[in-house]
């Protein structure tokens, strides 16, 4: 019999607000979503398999291409995992650690700015997009000054960093850090108190803390539900243990809370950058790489290590057979992939308009989901 109530809609892969090539198979009753089924794989490049056929240093530029809006943290996760496998984590010089933290916090700011830009434009506010990109451009300029690239940074090496900071970089960073808080104020003046924004986000896609933990959600979506879990605090890596910052937590677990959490995270990242700029003055210039051989050949064994990427827990699992220069097996635990699994749960019962808000609030990057 003809079903007059339900309609199937293919939301994507070619759609303005699926953040790439996500396809969501929607079952809708009018505009109300009965079921949403994310279909992924349109951007699968076999990155994990590629890692098995490459030297460890050669993998680093490939990690750029997974979460292509947060390359520095991807690099950091990979090099830290290999360092852990080789047992040289303690040898990383202080200066290298601080620069790594600076780069990953800058990357967090730039990733969150991109998230805010796209999230706002999904919900219909066009202008924050351009304001966010204005500041993001400055972050990318800083990256360009440091490592020569803007998106695919390739800015970390096993055992340290490729290069020391160029002259004038810290002054430029100082200028950015000084202006950034005011910029956040500007974005917030357009959104935070706006009644339309509030109505569009409050109570949309509520995730209870229990659900969030069961789905394995990490990062801002988890903290938006009120679970105090930030790998920078609970399993500090690099020099995060010495730095003073707070982990923002939401209470309702809705889209608005996740928005507030990310906005606050940007402020905290800015604070971290200030502290790092102070700390780096105490370290000798040029001391950026541990003394290890050029050929990376870790001993036999396996290791899992994860860091707090802008989108959540980014983990690498590497098995080494001890003989070759490449990994026997490498598995990436991408935060977007895991966070995306909660989309059907969050979307059910909402309207089609909310679906774009939800895709935005999960903050997925398809390069990372499909790898």
């Amino acid at each position: 019999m003809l079903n007059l109530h339900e309609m199937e809609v293919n939301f994507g892969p070619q759609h303005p607000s699926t953040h790439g090539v996500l396809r969501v198979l929607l079952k809708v009753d009018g505009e109300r979503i009965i079921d949403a089924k994310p279909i992924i794989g349109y951007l699968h490049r076999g990155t994990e398999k590629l890692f098995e056929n490459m030297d460890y240093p050669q993998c680093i530029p490939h990690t750029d291409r997974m979460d292509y809006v947060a390359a520095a943290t991807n690099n950091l996760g990979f090099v830290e995992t290999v360092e852990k496998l080789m047992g040289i984590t303690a040898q990383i010089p202080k200066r290298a650690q601080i620069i790594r933290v600076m780069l990953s916090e800058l990357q967090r700011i730039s990733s969150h700015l991109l998230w805010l830009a796209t999230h706002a434009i999904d919900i219909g506010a066009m202008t924050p997009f351009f304001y966010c990109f204005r500041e993001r451009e400055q972050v990318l300029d800083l990256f360009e000054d440091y490592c020569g690239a803007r998106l695919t940074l390739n800015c970390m090496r096993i055992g340290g960093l490729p290069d020391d900071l160029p002259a004038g970089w810290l002054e430029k960073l100082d200028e950015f850090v000084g202006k950034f808080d005011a910029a956040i104020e500007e974005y917030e003046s357009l959104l935070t108190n706006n009644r339309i924004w509030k109505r569009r986000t409050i109570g949309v896609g509520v995730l209870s803390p229990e659900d969030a933990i069961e789905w394995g959600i990490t990062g801002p979506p988890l903290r938006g539900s009120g679970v105090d879990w930030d790998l920078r605090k609970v399993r500090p890596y690099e020099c995060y243990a010495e730095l003073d910052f707070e982990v923002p937590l939401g209470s309702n677990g809705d889209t608005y809370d996740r928005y507030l959490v990310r906005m606050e995270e940007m402020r905290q990242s800015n604070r971290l950058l200030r502290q790092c700029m102070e700390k780096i003055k105490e370290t000798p210039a040029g001391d950026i790489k541990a003394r290890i051989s050029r050929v990376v050949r870790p001993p036999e064994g396996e290791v899992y290590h994860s860091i707090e990427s802008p989108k959540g827990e980014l983990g690498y699992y590497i098995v080494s057979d001890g003989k070759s220069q490449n990994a026997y097996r490498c598995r990436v635990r991408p935060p977007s992939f895991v966070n995306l699994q909660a989309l059907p749960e969050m979307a059910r019962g909402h309207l089609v308009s909310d679906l774009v808000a939800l895709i935005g609030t999960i903050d997925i990057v398809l390069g990372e989901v499909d790898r």
Partner: protein
Amino acid sequence: MMTLAAAAFAIPEPLMKYLVWPTIKFVIAFAIVQGIVAAMTLIERRGLAFMQARLGPNRVGPQGLFQIIADPVKLMLKEDIVPANAEKVSYFLGPILPLIPAFVVFALIPFGPPPTFTVTSVNVGVLLILALTSTGVYGIILGGWASNNKFSLMGGLRSAAQVVSYEVPFALSIIGVLMLVGSFDLVKIVRYQEANVWNVFPQIVGAFIFLVAMTAEVNRSPFDLPEAESELVAGFHTEYSGMKFAFFFLAEYAAMLVNACLIVTLFFGGWTLAMNNVGLTTKVMQSWGLGGALLGVLIFSAKVMFFMLVYVWFRGTFPRFRFDQLMDLGWKWMIPLALANIFVTGLVILLIQSPPWR
């Protein structure tokens, strides 16, 4: 001059008065409106860009001015794609239907002091405009449905619901003005305002509701749900291309212009710049002949332009409403508010006309 032309072509005077002159005036008004609509596309993009820390189109001609010509030319040269499974007749009618009422309405709007710049002076002008503007939605529904695209269908349905719900507060908000003035005639409404005060001051609530409802009527941000690009790709005109798409576009901008003209006429004194018969009143302008009339048109256009820019400003600032929230706002807030406004206005008029303490 009228009699001279009539004598030259030997046209009877009544025909001249009721047919020829209005037609000429309408054609002129139509051309001007076309020009404004074309210019608006550039002004909107430029203005929006300036709010967003960028430059906007600046390639074609000085300051991107020739973009006004380049855009229509591009659209005309584009291939006109008709989806294979589209309902051909409705698909064709879709873009044309909203265009006709949107342009006909301009015959009713007094652009300047009568008689020169008023095409027709209908004594039920407001009602006629309301009736005509509300027919524009049929084209959108038809186009959305005929495209045979689920997103277009959703856009069309949203548009139908939205326009139907906002038609009510749109009309109710005017009633306060009509009660004050005591006439449906737009010229009389303007005359009333120059003799007293702009209607926006006694009717601030009505003006606010009108502003919101008129934005919703023409599907502009923050009420641009039928074409919400982040949700429905392009809504009802997803499948349209070339000149058909341009017609939708024209209709939308013409409707914007109509509504801006209406709010100026109803609440902001039309072509006058006067209060208590002091200032640039109709009488003063008429005494200056054609120059005064042109001045009136200029004042009117300046006011209209301001409201056109307000549309752009809104688009640059606000997020989009959700469908159910839009209905919520329309039915639960705007209509009761408009009714309360009518009630209070009536009460005040009654109290002033026959004070119980006397």
